[in-house]
């Protein structure tokens, strides 16, 4: 068990805010989840544990020809086990994906968010939505390379997995990781999880799964939920983007554009001030006579 921050959670990044990271002291390690897809038996215990701990609403399930409980994530379903039947080498393979926030080191949602403090990245790597500051614009949804955040029309806020930040801060592991009966979800420091993931990948390769990979995409600076993918050559079938990047297109520029606009405003003001100092106030013509 890694050491815990002495008091409060140090913030690394905050949406729409230019406050620099404190960087005064080290706040302990970064945490990460490692999901070993080859060990998952598809029991969906993690889904239930997530709902139970976070007190998310129960949504009716429907049978649509899959083992999957719901069709999609929602504001009340932060974690969904997705099941896909794929043909691999003339045989059927059952692809399982634990679909939830990956907690990117460079979070596209945070870069896209225009509401100060609505999205926060802690020093421990967890990306958290603070609904009190959310303005419901849903830019984070378009900013996310993994299509994770979900909008609730009733509260007009966006929700997603917060890696049980309340539990993590109290020295407990996230609810999904704790409940997993096959230990397919491991949880620990990012370093340990990367090392463990690499060992697992080696093991899978030795077992004949030559394409096994550790999914920790560098395009978003690495993630704090990583996957051990047995069939790494078929990432698209797992619904995992091969090379995700933080902030698609113009969204990544939002922060820069915002600063440019503010600079133009400031320079305009400055020019007006200098003009006043140089030429004095404009006097109406009838007064001048």
């Amino acid at each position: 068990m890694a050491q815990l921050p002495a008091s409060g959670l140090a913030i690394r990044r905050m949406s729409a805010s230019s406050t620099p990271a404190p960087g005064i002291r080290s706040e302990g390690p970064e945490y990460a989840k490692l999901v070993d897809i080859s060990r998952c038996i598809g029991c969906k215990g993690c889904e239930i544990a997530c709902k139970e701990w976070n007190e998310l609403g129960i949504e009716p399930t429907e049978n649509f020809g899959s083992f999957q409980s719901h069709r999609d994530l929602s504001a009340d379903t932060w974690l969904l086990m997705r099941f896909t039947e794929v043909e691999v080498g003339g045989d059927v393979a059952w692809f399982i994906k634990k679909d939830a926030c990956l907690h990117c080191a460079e979070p596209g949602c945070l870069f896209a968010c225009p509401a100060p403090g609505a999205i926060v990245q802690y020093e421990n790597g967890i990306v958290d939505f603070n609904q009190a500051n959310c303005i419901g614009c849903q830019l984070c949804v378009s900013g996310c390379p993994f299509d994770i955040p979900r909008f609730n029309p009733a509260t007009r806020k966006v929700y997603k997995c917060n890696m049980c930040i309340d539990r993590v801060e109290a020295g407990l592991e996230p609810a999904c990781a704790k409940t997993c009966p096959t230990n397919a979800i491991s949880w620990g420091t990012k370093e340990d999880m990367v090392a463990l993931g690499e060992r697992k990948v080696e093991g899978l390769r030795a077992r004949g799964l030559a394409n096994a990979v550790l999914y920790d995409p560098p395009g978003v600076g690495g993630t704090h939920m990583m996957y051990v993918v047995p069939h790494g050559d078929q990432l698209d079938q797992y619904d995992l983007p091969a090379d995700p990047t933080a902030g698609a297109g113009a969204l990544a520029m939002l922060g820069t554009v915002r600063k440019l606009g503010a600079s133009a405003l400031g320079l305009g003001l400055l020019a007006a001030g200098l003009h006043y100092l140089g030429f004095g106030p404009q006097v109406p013509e009838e007064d001048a006579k």
Partner: protein
Amino acid sequence: MTISRRDLLKGTALAAGGTFVSALGFDLQPAYAQSRELKISGAREYKTVCPYCAVGCGTIAYVHGSGGLNTTRSVIHVEGDPDSPINGGTLCPKGAAQMQLAMSPRLEHSPKYRAPGSSEWEDVDWEWAMSWFARKYKDARDATFVERDAQGRTVNRCEGIGWVGSATVTNEDAYLITKTQRAMGIVYMDHQARI
């Protein structure tokens, strides 16, 4: 109220200045955050056993409320018991949702009795139910007790009653059940998980 052209310009300049300053490196957001309070921090822990299958996973039930005259004790969270050698803190989806059993509004709190020939269940009190059960048990045992088998050997067994144990009984419960039922001559004892 009238706003002169000059006032309007002043106000606009002030607002623009504020926007400029806040967008470029000055804001009062804290650099540290307080996360949500741990919801089980004020709860009492009760170690218990999952009521569903025969694996018998150890669980911890977190309970709020003092049980005083005006409060109701209620389970707010259940999760696996890391000290249990059976599950080491893990739980399957059914076990992870077991709080819903304890807190279900449809949970029955009194014994139910359906009289012979009746189609209705009725609420009865525990005392009535226990004496009814004891009467039936005694009658059935008296009617089906076998002292000697066909070869004349003493067997002292009761063949008309079976006893089915539950996955939630502890070792101690199981010991007591075996002890009392053997004393009554019951030979058909089984476990829910085998059925």
